[in-house]
């Protein structure tokens, strides 16, 4: 079946709403407007304003209300327009969603799903373009997902709704228009494991979310140079599927981490540290990282592109890692 990332996400929402009447979608402009990225277009007509619930511009208020509704037995899906806006709801996400289970000694779990877009590349400037999912991955008590494929766009939501604890889903803005084939009966997928999307023995390319297509492209071109790269799509940033990473590095002895987040104190830093801690004696070259330049994402196209990971930078890093120049 042909679909796009956006349609797959919408199909997942519709499916969840149909299967469980505790599920509802809440967020800014999810209803009348059809979703700021048109993900929920048409759902208001199908499910009505109670379950496709437009909210005021009150991120902390409606995210907190989602947490409360989850405590009260519902299965809310809360949409935040971008990760930058989610900062207005940090108190609720981190001080409440992530802690209530623990503070209550296991009495109150919070089965909420919070979706938001992330990432740059569309000339939206510094307040709509950042990749802060790595920050959230710092927080115990949260699950952090980054669907990068159509199958995951279609399948991660339902699994997340079955999870008893808060799940944050980060959808990279550049992926919504990605088109391709998925199975007609595509459905729920696991949300705990990383996926090896390409096998190779020269080095391991580790990435997630918006940079996955770029990494797959780079791997294809590297193969033309005789460098067979293994590609890991992390899928989940917390918990991190360390096993898949270490297992691959033990075979390839080289790793390159590609992350649209900034380098300092990032998820790429975490992955690199884990490799250094747990696969040190498997390494035959320093771990390479391709991250965003440490500036707020600029508006001008050429500046924005220069700040972001690129196929060229990924390939150059790979060549350095295998000692093939570059």
């Amino acid at each position, binding site marked *: 079946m042909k679909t796009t990332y956006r349609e797959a996400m919408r199909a997942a929402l519709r499916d969840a709403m*149909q*299967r*469980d*009447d*505790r*599920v*509802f979608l809440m967020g800014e402009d999810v209803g009348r407007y059809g979703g700021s990225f048109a993900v929920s277009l048409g759902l208001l007509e199908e499910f009505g304003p*109670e379950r496709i619930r437009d*909210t*005021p511009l*009150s991120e*902390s*208020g*409606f*995210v*907190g*209300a*989602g*947490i*409360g*509704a*989850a*405590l*009260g*037995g*519902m*299965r*809310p899906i809360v949409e935040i327009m971008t990760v930058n806006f989610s900062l207005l709801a940090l*108190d*609720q996400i981190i*001080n*409440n969603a992530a802690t*209530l*289970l*623990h*503070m*209550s*000694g*296991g*009495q*109150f*779990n*919070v*089965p909420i799903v919070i979706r938001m877009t992330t990432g740059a590349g569309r000339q939206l400037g510094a307040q709509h373009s950042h990749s802060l999912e790595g920050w959230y991955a710092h927080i*115990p*008590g949260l*699950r952090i997902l980054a669907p990068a494929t159509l199958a995951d766009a279609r399948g991660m939501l339902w699994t997340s709704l079955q*999870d*008893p*604890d808060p799940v944050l889903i980060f959808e990279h803005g550049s992926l919504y228009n990605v088109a391709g084939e998925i199975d007609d009966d595509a459905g729920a997928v696991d949300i*705990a494991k990383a996926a090896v999307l390409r096998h190779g023995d020269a080095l391991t390319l580790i990435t997630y979310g918006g940079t996955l297509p770029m990494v797959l492209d780079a791997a294809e071109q590297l193969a033309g140079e005789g460098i067979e790269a293994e590609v890991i799509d992390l899928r989940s940033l917390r*918990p991190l*599927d360390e096993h898949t990473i270490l297992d691959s590095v033990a075979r390839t002895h080289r790793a390159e981490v590609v992350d649209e987040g900034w380098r300092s104190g990032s998820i790429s830093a975490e992955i690199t540290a884990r490799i250094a801690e747990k696969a040190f004696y498997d390494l035959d070259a320093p771990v390479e990282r391709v991250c965003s330049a440490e500036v707020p994402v600029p508006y001008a196209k050429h500046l924005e592109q220069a700040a972001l990971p690129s196929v060229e930078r990924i390939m150059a890093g790979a060549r350095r890692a295998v000692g093939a120049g570059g």
Partner: protein
Amino acid sequence: MTGLKNQGVPDAGHALHLLRQMLRVRRLEEKCIELYSAAKIRGFLHVYIGEEAVAAGVMETLAPDDAVVATYREHGHALLRGVSAGAILAEMYGHAEGCCRGRGGSMHLFDAATRFYGGNAIVAGGLPLAVGLALADRMAGRQRVTVCFFGEGAVAEGEFHESMNLAALWQLPVLFCCENNLYAMGTALGRSESQTDIALKAAAYEIPAWAVDGMDVLAVEEAARRAVDAVRSGGGPHFLELRTYRFRAHSMFDPELYREKSEVAQWMERDPISLLQGAMEAAGQLPAEDWTALQADVEAEISTAVGFAENGTPEPVSELLRFVYSDRPDDGNGGTGNAEATGNPEATGKGRAAG
């Protein structure tokens, strides 16, 4: 407002019950201070002494399946909602027998059985939760009320305004109870708000709001009953500003440089316990032996609770990582592998599949 004078109370039996409730809170917290000074309890300790009439009056009006969201000054709310003094003290001791198995402490008391949702130490952080709990009830068609306690300091937070707006916009069954004790830590209301009439702020969101004498437990109860009934019958959110005063310091380590001792003394003349006790005594509604027996009962309850907490056991350190994620048998990643299910009856279990 009725106003407690010396003409007695309409229902002496019920008043005696309220007196007992307030005294239970008072004695529990006096004991907390003592135990804190003896270093049995650590962390921050915020006591409610002086404000007991608020929790005692409001709790009286709730049904068992209503929900309560409170602040970090919530020992009294927890106790009067039905959490045992022993479980509260054991929690402060950091013991496994505590209501949160030592994970929460004084500021984070929770209890699923009585739908007591904390224990929130972020000022105004509990308001959106209360809105959400009410939203769940509304969407599920349940006739339940969520009561949310917060201090007057919370009205300066954005979350207060976002929550007022959401609750009013969606006409949710929530009762907001602002415990106005005049100081946000050391900052007096007049030094932090341009508009000090708090009820007026709620009214601006089209929420019915009253100011109530928070030292008069009967007045509190009467106002709360009216509001709770209105909320339960579909009248949308309601708001009470309960004017009260904290007799003790903000927390244990507070030299109270921000207020005059004379001001405290003045308020202590309106001690909610003495007020009710005095009114009843003057009208001959509180025989001395009843008062003595009441005090002895409460002392015994607290003493038993201290014994329970003292004899508690520390949670094993091997359980450290528990309750970060829900226990789930099939997952080696998120959960810690413990089989015990989480206690929230509403957040677990299968969905009502729509077919």
